């Protein structure tokens, strides 16, 4: 069986939280048509929204003159997304664990943690202003298919 041609897209968006809505809808629609599970689609949706918000707020400091580039590639077994801002970058290891101690009562700081929880691979470029995320299709064993709830 021949592999499906990867579904690629590259867009540049303005630094406004709502700007991601269109590309998000397009991406999720493609995932549905490629038979990704609802669980995978939810995970990707959450990760993309969080990554974009981080790029707008922390990367580009809400500067509307700056832009955010999103690249994604969908294949049979995975979805890869990159979100790049025009900021000076950050050190991912410097972000505290939002689950620990008093951090749990903080009103922010969970975005990156959720991305790491829902995506299988998360890494950054050297500058720290581009996040690369991968989610592999959740493969089910034949005995588990009856328990699948998407």
């Amino acid at each position, binding site marked *: 069986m021949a592999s499906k041609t990867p579904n690629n897209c590259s867009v540049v968006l303005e630094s406004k939280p709502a700007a991601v809505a269109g590309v998000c809808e397009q991406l999720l629609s493609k995932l549905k048509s490629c038979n990704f599970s609802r669980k995978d689609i*939810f995970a990707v949706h959450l990760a993309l929204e969080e990554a974009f918000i981080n790029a707008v707020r922390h990367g580009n400091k809400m500067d509307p003159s700056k832009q955010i580039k999103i690249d994604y590639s969908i294949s049979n077994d995975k979805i890869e997304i990159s979100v790049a801002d025009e900021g000076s970058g950050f050190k991912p290891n410097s972000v505290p664990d*939002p689950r620990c101690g008093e951090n749990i009562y903080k009103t922010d700081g969970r975005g990156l943690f959720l991305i790491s929880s829902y995506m299988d691979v998360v890494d950054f470029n050297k500058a720290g202003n581009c996040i690369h995320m991968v989610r592999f299709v959740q493969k089910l064993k034949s005995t588990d298919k009856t328990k699948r709830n998407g």
Partner: protein
Amino acid sequence: MYHFGVTLSFFMEFVMVPIKPRISVEYAENATIVTFTDEKILEERDIQALQESIMSVIEQADHLNMILDFCNVSFLSSAVLGLLIRISKKVYERQGQLKLCKINPKIYEIFKITRLTNIFDIYPDLKSAAESLSASD
């Protein structure tokens, strides 16, 4: 004059978009029930609007028990978790209790992963949430 009236009327019809309420509020015997009406709670302005609406409800009561009903919510961002923490702090400042209910499994997973299940009381339905308030009164 007629032309101006028609133009103005058209303009007003064009810009007067009905604002969908983001919450519905119901006053029960032992709690104020706030139901989120939006399916997806994502955008900062929507979250800000929600905060204003819910804080307004809290401030109108001296002693408030609040139940947040998530029956319509299928997706939310981490910013909503921050909003919920602000709400809980406000409710507790006013010697009230906050309960959450009808959170769908995918959303519940977010609470679980972030360990917010340790700080929020979450119930499967309104009845059990309300009963928990009665039990602790």
